[in-house]
């Protein structure tokens, strides 16, 4: 009996169906009421009881095979049915890829920086680009004859000899936002302040009269230089990889004391070089005094970095002007 079933199975497997006629022939031979499958089941009565289970299973398999062979062949025949294709139905015809939205590389670099500081628990603060002298210079401990207050370095919008009227400038850093924060809010304060800043510089491949900064401020009762350095190291590792080689060295800014700068080792074709990536320091007591924060009770740190520079480095752009030309072929390279 099993041999009979096997024979039928082979017969089904060997049958070929290439057109409607053959399909119908297959159906009549195997699947119709008088077909071979049905007549196979008719033999069941002759099977001894103890074999019935095994034989039944084998018969069912053959039945399923016949049905699936038929179904597949039918489907295949339907698909090969001739459809009329016109010239414009050619699926290989080219299309214009859909226009997609994207962020400018400056925004992408800034977002990376923001994400890192958000993870470190910093908030994000904003302020005006057009500032008064107090917020941009005086409160930040710039002496009255500091070179940064020079017309050669800073864009002035209003310059007044009248004591009661403050000078207005395009902010030269985002530090005025720190002043605004400390005026508005009691410590602890932990925030970064990204934004556009201005310096009176000619437009060249290496300089531009506007650029973007991210500064950070942390004020609390026991903030140390050690914590500042640790924060900067965390940033450098998250931004440039955990194996980043770095060093900090003393520097000078009017609004921090002590002040420092951080360099990282940047590999290039010539081997590599130390690159300054940010300036930082402990907020100068004069700055805290200017905004009525008790400089004996509170200490704090501040840091700042240039986003344009980071973007240039990150993407290997060699001309700052490229960032402000907005060539669509340039913008397209920065995927989201």
């Amino acid at each position, binding site marked *: 009996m099993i041999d009979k079933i096997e024979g039928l199975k082979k017969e089904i497997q060997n049958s070929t169906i290439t057109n409607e006629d053959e399909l119908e022939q297959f159906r009549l031979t195997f699947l119709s009421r008088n077909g071979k499958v049905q007549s196979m089941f008719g033999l069941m009565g002759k099977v001894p009881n103890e074999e019935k289970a095994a034989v039944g299973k084998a018969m069912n398999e053959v039945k399923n095979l016949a049905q699936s062979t038929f179904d597949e062949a039918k489907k295949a025949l339907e698909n090969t049915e001739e459809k009329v294709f016109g010239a414009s139905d050619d699926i290989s015809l080219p299309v214009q890829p859909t226009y997609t*939205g994207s962020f400018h590389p400056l925004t992408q670099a800034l977002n990376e920086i923001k994400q890192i500081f958000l993870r470190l628990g910093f908030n994000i603060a*904003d302020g005006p680009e057009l500032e008064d002298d107090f917020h941009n210079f005086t409160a930040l401990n710039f002496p009255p004859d500091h070179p940064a207050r020079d017309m050669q370095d800073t864009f002035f*919008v209003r310059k007044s000899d009248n004591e009661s009227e403050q000078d207005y400038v395009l902010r030269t850093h985002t530090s005025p936002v720190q002043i605004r924060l400390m005026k508005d809010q009691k410590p602890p304060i932990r925030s970064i302040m990204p934004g556009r800043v201005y310096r*009176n510089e*000619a437009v060249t491949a290496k300089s531009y009269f506007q650029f973007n900064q991210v500064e950070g401020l942390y004020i*609390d009762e026991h903030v*140390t230089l050690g914590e500042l350095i640790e924060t900067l190291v965390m940033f450098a590792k998250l931004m440039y990889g955990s194996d980043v080689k770095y060093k900090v*060295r003393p520097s000078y800014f009017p609004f921090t004391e002590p002040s420092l700068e951080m360099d990282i080792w940047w590999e290039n074709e010539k081997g590599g070089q130390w690159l300054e990536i940010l300036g930082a320091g402990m907020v100068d007591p004069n700055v805290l005094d200017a905004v009525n924060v008790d400089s004996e009770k509170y*200490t704090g740190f501040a840091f700042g970095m240039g986003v344009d520079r980071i973007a240039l480095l990150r993407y290997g752009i060699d001309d700052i002007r490229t960032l402000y030309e907005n060539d669509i072929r340039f913008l397209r390279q920065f995927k989201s």
Partner: protein
Amino acid sequence: MKISTNWLREYIETPLDADEIADKLTLLGLEVEGIEKIGSDYEGIVVGEILGVKAHPNADRLQLCEVHLGNEQVQIVCGAKNVAKGQKVPVAVVGATLPLPDGDELTIRKAKLRGEKSEGMICSEVELGIGDDNSGIMVLDESLKTGSPFKETINTKPDYILEIGLTPNRPDAACHIGVARDLAAVIEGELKNPYQEVEKSAEDLSFINVNIEDTEKCHRYVGMMVNEVTVSESPEWLKTRLKSIGLRPVNNIVDVTNFVLHEIGQPLHAFDYAKIASKKINVKSFDKEVTFKTLDDVDRKVPANTLFICDGDGPVAVAGVMGGKSSEVSDETKTVFIESAYFDPTSVRKASKALTLQTDSSYRFERGIDPTLQLRAAKRAADLIAELSGGKVVAQQTDEHPVKTDQKTVSLRPSRVNHLLGTDLGKEEISGILTRLEFGVTSKSEDELTCIVPYFRPDVSREVDLIEEVGRVFDYNNIPTPKTSPFFTPETLSEWEVYNERVRTLAKSLSYKEITTNSLLSKKEASLLADENLHIDTLNPVSQENTTLRTHLLAGFLKAARYNFNRNAKQLRFFELGHVFQQDKKGTWIDGVKEHSNLLFGLSGYKKFESWDGKPEPFSIFDLKADVEAFFRELNVHDKVEQVVQSNYELEYQLDGNSVAIIKMIDDSTLKGFDLEEEAFTAEIDITALYNAGLANRDTEYQKVSKYPSFEFDAAFIVDSEVRAGDLSKEIRRSADETLVSVDVFDVYEGKNLGSNKKSIAFRLSFLDSNKTLTIKDVEPMVKKIVQALESKFEAKLRS
């Protein structure tokens, strides 16, 4: 600022090489930005003995020299006239390299010169880079051993010049001794300082009368004299020092003043005593502009109130900046008058800036020099001049000192040092560092040190300044990593920041590419955007292209569009988020300035290109409008803003009567102003205003969605052609209840059959109820109401 490491080693002994010194200085805050090697190791240069000289058979000017090099004998072709048998000469052997003046190197090879072989080169001083004598080969002492290395026979060794980027707070480090002092502090070495205290002479100089008229600008004026000098070239050691830091040697008087300046940081001026009129020096400023010829032979207009050194006839030097031509030391000078003064930093800075003339002197005066150094420096210079010129130092000195600087005393709590730095330094360690920096440190109590600040540190006046000194010598990199991190619950992110992120992300999701454009426009560009009385100009623009702060973002887009169209772009879909500025009575942040954050959407070019599947399709104002309304919908203000038609080219959106957005088809004159031929459409959305409307809240409450389908009803109205579809839509909504969920226009039509000045607008109204399926019966009363309202208000007629 250039520092020679060879020179530096005069004051501090150290086994460190130049790179190591540079690293130490950088970590001290004297950042070394570059290291340049000058001079040579003279590898491959040996002492050769000339055994014989004969004429070159093929060249009149060349000679063949038989030269013994110790281990071999070679023939060298030489062109120098002074070559002679028996001389000992420096020979660059085959394979040796010589520095060339242009910075390259010359490698000596075996050669044939006019048919005669030459294996090496007999060198002149110039070729070896050790002197100026180019007249012939350098002839060495006859006693030198043939074949011995040349470098053993001379005193020069290669020097490494450090370029230090000096921060403005460190005037003390603007000289070799100052740098050596810092280095000594960190390597705990001993500083050798040749400047000893000088006993002031009992009497003033009798040969000259010094008077300080402007004591505000000149705090001290020391004068010393050296007579019987012979002005000549400086000795080699002095010339080497000056040349190593890029100075041109002049003569043994001027060179000494420059040497002292770079050694200790005190600018000096040497006058020819004979040329000082009336033997009078008066330090004064004038209340009017003065024209003065400086040493560099330039007539300069010096503004009023600039400090001058004058003699009996008038100005002889711009104090602290540059001397004058008339009193310059010359070869005939017999008596030298040395000026060593302290000028007020601010006044020198002003003078230097006004003259756009920064000199080594002004650089130091304007940063603040040691106010006690003048006599010591004058004495050092006088002694050196006497030594080098065979002169005699006049025993008397003049020291006018009207303004004396008080020495500062600052207390320091060691606990505060550790509190601020995060260190665990002991009192001894702290006081050790400060002592090495020449602070006078005494212990006042358990946690208090009293520190006397040296005069050469005008930057140190507070406890925190001392803490910085301790920190930088300790090395910030040695500060231990904090054991715990300063963690407190972060504040919730500011709503404004969240809102801005939403706006930016939304713009991107609407398929706009972000651009960043200039905040500063030309006056002409700015005038195309807004009335001039709204402009804010910079007083000192970087160029005429960038004078005026942008009142709108529009200009940036149009410029970016032009840039791209010039490069054959076809499809531009840009956004920018940025600040815009206008004059305003109130002001946003500061008085008189409205500074808002705007979002710009800009479209120009083709929405769809010419292609096999259809004709090209340019962008239209409605593409932009659809995006703006999608934007409003996502910000949840779509049902709160109202559109107000400003013209056929401009549509405004208002929120509570305030303008929040403007959609524009850019008019021809503006396009022309920006040199654009393509049509452009912009939407400028005032994000600050939207945010301030208090609708930034994003808390979402789920609204049940109706289970039933909507019922749609079409109705076309004939109206006068000037009636706006927007107004009709508004009226339709007003007349219906909340089951009316949308009002669309599916057809607009003008035709003769409608009559002149008439048009038909076909609306599709969608009604939806959350409790049942609506039928015509349900909506009929409302439709009637709508028809009546439109009839009475717009004389609209329902088309059957």
